[in-house]
């Protein structure tokens, strides 16, 4: 034995196969003369083998759908952009046609939530909604109950959009509803509905845009609406108008 004294670190590196062969040989020589240390090394080696025996079966398990789904969410790039943009405070890219009062800043923040909800759920193939349009009456009753006020689902068939269904989402102050529509080509629009803090307010349409997602949003007394989609602004406005008219006949 010509090398440096054997340390605990050497014993571990020996167990982990991380020693150069010459040093490993020195450790082996040392262990041959120190049975207590040799027993310790054997125990560590058993631990390493035991860990593989115990947990390698996980490698062969089918990956649960919820995990496979994460890497399949479409369109990913856009999702990342929106998440990043939220993190940055959501200033860049938004042209909010509003005065910069705190009240309107609050309004913009809920419209932003609506846009994010659109980005997250509209690409879903298997689970775009919680309750489908085939159970529309149940959907409306359920969401009305959760929001604590009667909701109406606008029919957009005359504009070529049919209802896919809806879901309940967490909003800033409580539950919000999202209704999803799609046209014959699979283009989707979402209508985000929340309960307003101030029931007396009514606003004109406001528009916000991030990349390809446009949002028209407005307050209508008790409820606030945000319509999001990746369609041309003029068409989105046409849909927003149709919704407003149906809700205020």
């Amino acid at each position, binding site marked *: 034995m010509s090398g440096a004294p054997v*340390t605990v670190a050497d*014993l571990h590196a020996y167990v*982990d196969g991380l020693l150069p062969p010459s040093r490993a040989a020195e450790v082996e020589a040392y262990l041959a003369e120190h049975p207590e240390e040799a027993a310790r090394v054997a125990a560590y080696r058993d*631990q390493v083998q035991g*860990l593989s025996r115990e947990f390698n079966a996980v490698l*062969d398990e089918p*990956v649960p759908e919820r*995990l496979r789904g994460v*890497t399949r969410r479409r369109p990913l790039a856009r999702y*990342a952009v929106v998440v990043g943009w939220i993190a940055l405070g959501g200033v860049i890219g938004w042209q909010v046609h509003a005065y910069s009062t705190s009240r309107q800043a609050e309004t913009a923040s809920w419209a932003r939530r609506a846009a994010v909800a659109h980005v997250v759920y509209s690409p879903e193939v298997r689970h775009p909604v919680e309750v489908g349009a085939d159970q529309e009456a149940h959907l409306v009753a359920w969401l009305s109950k959760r929001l604590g006020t009667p909701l109406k689902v606008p029919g957009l068939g005359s504009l070529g959009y049919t209802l896919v269904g809806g879901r309940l989402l967490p909003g800033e102050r409580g539950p919000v509803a999202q209704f999803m529509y799609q046209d014959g080509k699979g283009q989707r629009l979402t209508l985000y509905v929340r309960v307003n803090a101030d029931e007396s307010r009514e606003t004109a349409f406001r528009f916000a845009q991030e990349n390809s997602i446009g949002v028209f949003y407005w307050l209508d007394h008790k409820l606030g609406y945000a319509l999001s989609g990746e369609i041309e602004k003029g068409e989105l406005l046409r849909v927003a108008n149709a919704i407003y008219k149906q809700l205020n006949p």
Partner: protein
Amino acid sequence: MVVTDHDALIAQQIPRLRRYARALTGDRAAADDLVQDTLERALSRFHLWRRGSDLRAWLFTIMHNIYVNQVRSLARHRNEALETEPDAEMPRGRDPDWLELRDLAGALARVPDEQRTVLLLVGLEQFTYDEAARILDIPIGTVMSRLSRGRERLRVLLGSETPVTSLKVVK
């Protein structure tokens, strides 16, 4: 399409992330929650990954950070379990708990988090000490001392050995 490329690269790593998370948390659902959080964060930050660097190490770094934050938020409730030395709470001899502790997964759960993390990165995931140090963002000497304490703790838990401290940890 570049996006598909990201997805496929990351998806390949899911089984190993799950294995590590299962061993780390000892609970299937909690482990998959951790993996899911990791995947979501990784995908949202994929632009931060340096192409050509080790994707697996990068994913484990993300998972570790998420795990540490979760543990921290729970730490108030189980502070005492994090850094207790073996002698203080080790059941000896005929304690009824003792038999259960002979099972590796059960013993692993009784190793402090920061030691268990190193045991698993090195022993189960076969990262080098250097890689483990980078994943955990700690000096390599700390990796060695945690590995050393963790393995000794596990040995005591599994085999009723008296801790051996005749050697110096470093040269």
